[in-house]
């Protein structure tokens, strides 16, 4: 085991948004900072590189946001998605702090763009990064380099060494070389455990091995596990993860945004046996895509098949892989590995249940089936116009909920009290606030707010 020659004021474990916000804040307060990023440079930034926007409270128009989005409305939106599984005090603190984050982000190199095509519904609540999350991550790394922050890539933290109420050092492997890293303060911002399929399988069941991981393969929860094993207080349901239905042909890891499929509301979705299992038209897709991960996960082999016809092919965002295409339902079934007779029976049954009426793809049109055990309550048009198209759906895991419990100062606690020189930020503690569901852009808000708090606290601790 070699020793990193320097003793840092602050060692930050992780290299995504929260880690960078903590490191930059502490360095600006005068601390000597080291960032330990587990990924190689090309994949730095954790799940932040897949993000796109930041949910921000504001009392009036504030570039790039329109109108106003005040604390109560923001908090109510959070209550709605979490169904109350949140810590109101922490949540309101994050919401209030988000407003001053926006100018801070800009002064540290992040650039925003006005909401353009298709995202206008979010132009009031969410600030979009110009170029997306990787551009944000790059901006913060440039800022970090300019501040003289040391950055180690391929730096896996194996063990956080705790001595009573203090952390003394980290046992790491940097580019394969076992290395001890010493510092006076530590911030853990190393994400959740969603890339560890064994852990997911233990929590969820063996079906989890068929899940796709939408984000980085580097969030394996090693540090989270290590801290929990050492008695750190936890928060969040250990068995749950946030999963959406994505293109079944996506890469196992890191498929990111392009693997989304927006076709479900205009389709019928069948399982391996060719049967429908849920109302595809229950609500508009932005309000439903998150439940479909779970729905597909509950089907045999954790797979679903969305079937549409020629009428609907241009009604949704393009998919990253072209759909399977056939002139007959039977042909489509064969190509997708489904039983042609079963799919034909399901389509015929569905088509017979469709009713005439006006179809409006952009609003709840009430065009519903009649007499089906599994109804479709909007956009129910017969699947009858060749060519027919099919997409395979699989659950794509975005993040996990289990995390470290922190207080308003981002401090990590053990049963006997706070660990004096340890703070946490980002996904590793987000379960404190986001106990269930997801609110677009809120993960980046938690990461930015708590990253900055952790950086401030750590810098004050060593000052």
């Amino acid at each position, binding site marked *: 085991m070699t020793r990193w020659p320097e003793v840092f004021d602050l060692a930050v474990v992780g290299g995504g948004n929260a880690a960078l916000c903590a490191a930059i804040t502490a360095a600006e307060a005068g601390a000597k900072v080291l960032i330990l990023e587990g990924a190689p440079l090309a994949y730095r930034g954790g799940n932040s590189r897949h993000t796109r926007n930041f949910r921000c409270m504001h009392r009036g128009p504030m570039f790039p946001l329109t109108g106003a989005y005040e604390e109560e409305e923001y908090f109510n939106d959070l209550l709605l998605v979490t169904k109350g599984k949140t810590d109101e005090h922490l949540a309101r603190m994050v919401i209030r702090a988000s407003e001053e984050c926006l100018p801070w982000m800009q002064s540290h190199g992040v*650039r925003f763009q006005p909401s*353009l095509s298709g995202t206008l519904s979010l132009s009031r609540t969410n600030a979009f990064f110009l*170029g*997306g999350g*990787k551009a944000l991550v790059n901006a913060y790394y440039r800022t970090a380099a300019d501040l003289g922050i040391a950055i180690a890539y391929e730096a896996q933290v194996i063990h956080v060494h705790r001595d009573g109420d203090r952390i003394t050092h980290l046992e790491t492997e940097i580019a394969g070389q076992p290395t001890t890293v010493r510092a006076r303060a530590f911030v853990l911002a190393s994400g959740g455990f969603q890339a560890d399929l064994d852990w997911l399988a233990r929590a969820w069941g063996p079906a989890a091995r068929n899940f796709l991981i939408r984000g980085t393969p580097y969030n394996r929860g090693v540090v989270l596990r290590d801290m929990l094993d050492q008695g750190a207080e936890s928060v969040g349901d250990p068995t749950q993860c946030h999963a959406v239905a994505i293109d079944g042909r996506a890469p196992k890891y*890191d498929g990111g*945004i392009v693997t*989304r499929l927006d076709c479900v509301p205009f389709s019928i979705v069948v399982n391996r046996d060719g049967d429908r299992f849920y109302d595809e038209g229950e609500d508009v897709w932005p309000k439903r895509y998150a439940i479909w991960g779970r729905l597909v996960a509950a089907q045999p082999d954790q797979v679903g098949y969305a079937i549409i016809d020629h009428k609907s092919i*241009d009604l949704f*965002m393009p998919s990253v892989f072209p759909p399977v295409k056939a002139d007959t339902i039977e042909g489509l079934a064969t190509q997708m590995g489904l039983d042609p007779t079963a799919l034909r029976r399901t389509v015929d049954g569905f088509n017979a249940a469709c009713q005439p009426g006006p179809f409006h793809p952009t609003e709840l049109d009430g065009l519903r089936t009649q007499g089906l055990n599994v109804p479709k309550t909007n956009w129910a048009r017969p699947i009858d116009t060749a060519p027919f198209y099919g997409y395979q759906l699989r659950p794509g895991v975005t993040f996990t909920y289990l995390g470290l419990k922190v207080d308003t100062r981002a401090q990590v606690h053990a049963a006997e009290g706070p660990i004096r020189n340890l703070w946490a930020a980002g996904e590793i503690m987000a379960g404190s606030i986001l106990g269930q569901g997801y609110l677009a852009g809120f993960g980046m808000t938690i990461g930015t707010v708590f990253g900055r708090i952790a950086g401030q606290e750590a810098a004050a601790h060593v000052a």
Partner: protein
Amino acid sequence: MSLDMPPKIAPQAEARRQMEICNACRYCEGFCAVFPAMTRQKAFADGDLTHLANLCHNCRGCYYACQYTEPHEFALNIPAALAEVRADSWERLARPRALARLFQTHGTAMAALAVVALAFFFWALAALRPAEGAGFYAHLAHNTMIAIFIPAFLAPLALIALSLRDYWHEVGGGRIRLSHLFQALHAAARMKNLSGGHGEGCNFEDADRFSDRRRQFHHLMMYGFLLCFASTASGTVMHYAFAWEAPYPLWSPPKLLGIPGGLMMVAGAAGLAWLKTKADPALGAARVWGGEMAFILLLGSVALTGLALYAATGTGLVGPLLAIHLATVLVLFLLMPFSKMVHGFYRLAALVAEAGKPAPAGGGE
């Protein structure tokens, strides 16, 4: 070609593969005109790709912001993919194509042509020396120069016009309205598509750090070139309309336009060449690097030799400098359809075509 190179696929096929992935993401829609234009279609015909490629100014912002660059299995490199399609379109639409392929790719070919032109002018100066004339007209008569340069200027322009007609057809350009021209000129005059969408410029010479240098040097080059062109045009007007023949004094339109223009071009060429040596060739069409570099140096040489010629007024150097200057100008004119010089025509055409297309409907998460 080494044995471990993958088989070459058409630039359009690779660009199509990449744009289909890109179009499912759209995080980059704020950088430049390419991405909003991309959202118009789900499937990309060759003409769509030609259009997008000529809208792309190779600012590289999208490359550094991309989640899907190598080592990711999607292996996106949009600036390079579009640069290949762009270079291919300029070669394909040029006539004769073989000349474009030669001069786009090989800087040495351009240098060889310059040597030929130089030899020609040394011969012309020796053999066609006029009996009378002032300034450089003492070395080569005005009418002789006109006889050489008018065809050398107009014939390439005619070829470019034919290529642009084919281009317009290929990209599905519509009827041109005055407002489309204004929009295109407005974007070109400010090099809007090199602004990065936030006004801080490109990711060209220093990885993902933004810099406005490329835009600034390009402005120097472009406006310097336009001033020099205006200088020549003013000389023509003075010659024919006012019978006021060269040499012109310092306080005359040709000199007042030409000297600053020449200085700007020299500075612009030096800057652009310097940036090009620092930029990652893998984010452009690497095979045309030599031709592009030679083109920058040629523009710089035209300006530098023009300034030198003026500085040498009244000395014995006027003769040889005149030959060198005229040779560089001749090469520049002759290679307009076959060198990077066409980029100005195609880019402007792309901006006009884009202004005339329906506003992208878009979509996004």
